[in-house]
């Protein structure tokens, strides 16, 4: 299993925010947490799942559902003025004209999107 160190730090941050939001609203239990993770955010979903279990233990979010919305990476070609999908890396080749692009329009998201609580 890949090292979850990076993901543990991110989940800690997520849980702190979740518990803060829950407390602000007087919620007693967190039912579901939705994260938005870009495919190029550098985060392993397996490690995230593991980290989630670890950091929610003994909190009101223990046992909550973790939903992950994958955001596919899309780069932008300045010549074609069009977006195209990409899998990895930092330099992307436009499939239409072959020009190199470094402009990523989406794919690096790492955010807390939604919390369901009671």
């Amino acid at each position, binding site marked *: 299993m890949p090292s979850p160190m990076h993901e543990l730090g991110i989940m800690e941050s997520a849980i702190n925010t979740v518990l803060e939001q829950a407390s602000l609203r007087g919620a007693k239990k967190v039912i579901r947490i939705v994260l938005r993770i870009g495919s190029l955010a550098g985060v392993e979903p397996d490690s995230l799942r593991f980290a989630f279990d670890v950091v929610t233990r003994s909190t009101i979010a223990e046992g909550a559902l973790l939903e992950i919305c994958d955001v596919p990476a899309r780069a932008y070609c300045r010549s074609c003025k069009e977006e195209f999908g990409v899998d990895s890396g930092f330099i992307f080749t436009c499939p239409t004209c072959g020009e190199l692009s470094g402009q990523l329009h989406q794919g690096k998201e790492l955010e*807390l999107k939604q919390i369901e609580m009671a």
Partner: protein
Amino acid sequence: MCKDNPHPHVHEEVEEDIEYAVHVMHGHDDAHSKGHGWHVHEDGTAHCHDDSHEEHHHDEIKTRTVDLAIPLLDKNDRIAERNRGFFRGKGILALNLVSSPGAGKTTLLEKTLDEFGKQVKTAVLVGDLETDNDGRRLQRPHVSVAQITTGSACHLEAEMVAKGLDAIDLNGVKVLFIENVGNLVCPASFDLGEKLRVVLLSCTEGEDKPLKYPPIFKSADIVLLTKVDVADVLGFSRKLAVENIKKIAPQAQLIEVSSRSGEGLKSWYDAINKHLEKL
């Protein structure tokens, strides 16, 4: 509880203009595959049922769903933001100098502290795995310098910088130079809280370095092409290097310099001053 053997479901959904797949990670046995709901009791405990438990009556609490878009930061990012806030509050322009080992960071800083540092009050944090050689080279009566030895870490992290700040005298300091560990890879992923990231590429390296190390170049605010005084002797093509830098780092200000001959140093100092004014 419902947490063993998690397996993903994939649903295609379209929200706004972005297509994404939703993986629902939760565990339940196949017998419950028809669906399930969470029931929450007044005392805050909750458990889940499947649809076949209709006759199980008890008070249900309505759940609330809150939509957010809060970015998740890991520990380094949080401390980096704290550093950033500190610099902003004190009116200090912080620069993070990164490069391959031997590209000329320390030599450039020596020159910078002697010339620019005489007009503007500066301080330095320098990172290396071992020795305080660089720290000692940079020591000057008018500049507060602290050496960070990481031991084995190949890059500086925000927490090290935060600790390093305790070791220097920041009174009246306008510019803080942070000399990172020589490394073109890892520093790219570690925000130190700096205002400007300065990447050095020397004429003793290959012209295609930017193509081989995109992350660090893409994160640069300023790229310095150093040791231009020896480029000709080495058959190094400044033109090609500049092309590659502009290809990978079009967002960065590019300045060609030589610490030994002095070429371009005025432009480097002017750039720092311009950013200082904008603070």
